């Protein structure tokens, strides 16, 4: 009697044990499958974006896009050469302002005063600046430049982009300087070099490839941004003649043309997207491929 009870109890528990282990295994495999399925799900929208941009952007792709001006509403033909030039000019202005400023500040933070409260403050502010929405850069440039000069201009757009990319350049430059082994500096001091000579002749050249990576990432970011230039550089149907007048850019062109009821303008928006994505991807690849190996 007792032995039967013990057996049945043992049977019950071993059976239950099998059942739980089956359930546990099933749950394990189910969750693995779910996790993989969700991960692959994200491929779908990306695939859709890439395919549509290529599919809709390619048909109009020709040299005309680069050499001609946008057509008047309702008309066909033409390109957006002025927008490509405008984007390049504004990114150029942004780099002209932010690259020297960012690198100098990084040198200060990492070489001259790495442990001081001022350096900590610079890092903190740079970190905060990365979190500021890009449109705020535009609002600031509108307040500081457009409202002062009473003009929408490429300069205002360039300044907005400069603020946008400054923290990126500063923080990556600081990382790059940090990557230079301290022995290099000691060796330089050892042969009698001043701190300035050490930084200028030894540390900066050594860190330069990595700094350039940061700069290329900044170029990619600036070229793709719309919000900072939307109401600072505005848009223009014509070629840029001076940086003090409204200027077209690829991103604003996409925004403006996407909501127009003309099929040709929408096609132009897709082509501009293709070129913009190509430009951004190219800068990103340049950042990672060309400069990276030397850094390691």
């Amino acid at each position, binding site marked *: 009697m007792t032995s039967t009870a013990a057996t049945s109890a043992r049977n019950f528990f071993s059976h239950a044990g099998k059942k739980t282990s089956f359930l546990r295994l099933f749950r394990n495999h189910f969750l*693995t499958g779910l*996790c*993989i399925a969700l991960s692959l799900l994200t491929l779908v929208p990306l695939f859709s974006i890439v395919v549509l941009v290529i599919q809709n952007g390619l048909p109009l792709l020709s040299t005309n896009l680069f050499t001609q001006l946008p057509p008047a509403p309702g008309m066909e033909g033409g390109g957006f050469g002025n927008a490509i030039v405008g984007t390049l000019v504004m990114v150029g202005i942004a780099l002209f302002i932010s690259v020297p400023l960012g690198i100098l*500040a990084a040198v200060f933070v990492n070489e001259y005063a790495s442990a001081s409260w001022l350096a900590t403050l610079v890092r903190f502010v740079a970190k905060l600046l990365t*979190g500021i*929405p890009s*449109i705020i850069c535009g*609002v600031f440039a509108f307040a500081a430049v457009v409202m002062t000069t009473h003009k929408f201009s490429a300069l205002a757009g360039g300044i907005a982009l400069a603020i946008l990319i400054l923290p990126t350049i500063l923080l990556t430059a600081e990382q790059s300087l940090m990557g230079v082994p301290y022995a290099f500096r000691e060796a330089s001091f050892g042969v009698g070099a001043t701190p300035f000579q050490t930084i200028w002749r030894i540390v900066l050249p050594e860190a330069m490839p990595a700094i350039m990576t940061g700069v290329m990432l900044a170029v990619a970011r600036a070229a793709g941004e719309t919000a900072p230039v939307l109401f600072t550089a505005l848009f223009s149907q014509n070629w840029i003649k001076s940086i003090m007048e409204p200027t077209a850019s690829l991103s604003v062109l996409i925004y403006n043309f*996407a909501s127009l009821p003309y099929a040709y303008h929408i096609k132009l928006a897709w082509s501009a997207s293709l070129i*913009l994505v190509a430009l951004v991807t190219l800068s990103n690849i340049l950042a990672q491929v060309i400069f990276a190996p030397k850094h390691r």
Partner: protein
Amino acid sequence: MACLLASVLTITLLAFIVGEILFKAWPAISKFGLGFITGKQWSPNREVFGVLPVLIGTTASSFLALLVSLPLGLAIAIFLSEDFFPGPVRQVIRFVVETLAAIPSVVYGLWGIFVVIPLVQQYGAVIAAKFGIIPFLAGPAYGNSLLTASLVLALMVLPTITAISRSSLVAVPYTLREGSYALGATRWETILKVIIPTAAPGIVASSILAFGRAMGETMAVAMLIGNSQRLSWSLLSPSNTLSALLANQFAEADGIQVSALMYAAALLIVLTLGVNIAGEAVLRHTQKATAGLR
């Protein structure tokens, strides 16, 4: 010396940005005061400005985006930190997610206009017809809606969530995993009961930072959300966000409207800075916490 100057410039830049915007917003701040935040009307013609519907739209769209993005992003982060597939396959997925981050916002907007809006229009009408009694799903269903903007936003903040969650999952010491396996736990019991709880602060930080990014995101939202300042509870009706409001009205604004927009910009700065500082604080705390486990 030049280096010091550059550093001081960088520090003052933030103060200058905030100061300049507050200065230009002052006429609106002194005229409307806090009524600006609680006001439900935005009509430049009558010089009445209130941003309550826009504030709600900003929070709602970012929150919805996070709701969609967090499970997906966490799944990818787990996928990338576990060895379900060999390294190269995981590298491909990682590359794909990083590519998502590199696509310009305005291209998301263009894609949203031609892909997401028709989808939402088609299925939104069906949903509104069936579940219209629930205020969140009430019709009429528009393509340019809160839902459309949130879906595209979800895609845009996915890389943020994935990258930060992944690094906090990877930072969980391997010995914890081995200990769990040694007690007989399955892989998912280990993930759900040991690894995720240990990495939780990092995942929370990723969500907060993603929320901040979503609030500041401008162009795609401006192209998809419908830009309506009318207060509505339905996900299927047009709405607006602070950044989209700025994007749409700045170029043509003048007089007191510029000040009102500057006021809105100041609110946006306060919101995003607050969220970002909170996120960074949690992240810093996480790094300290996991460092202690080693």
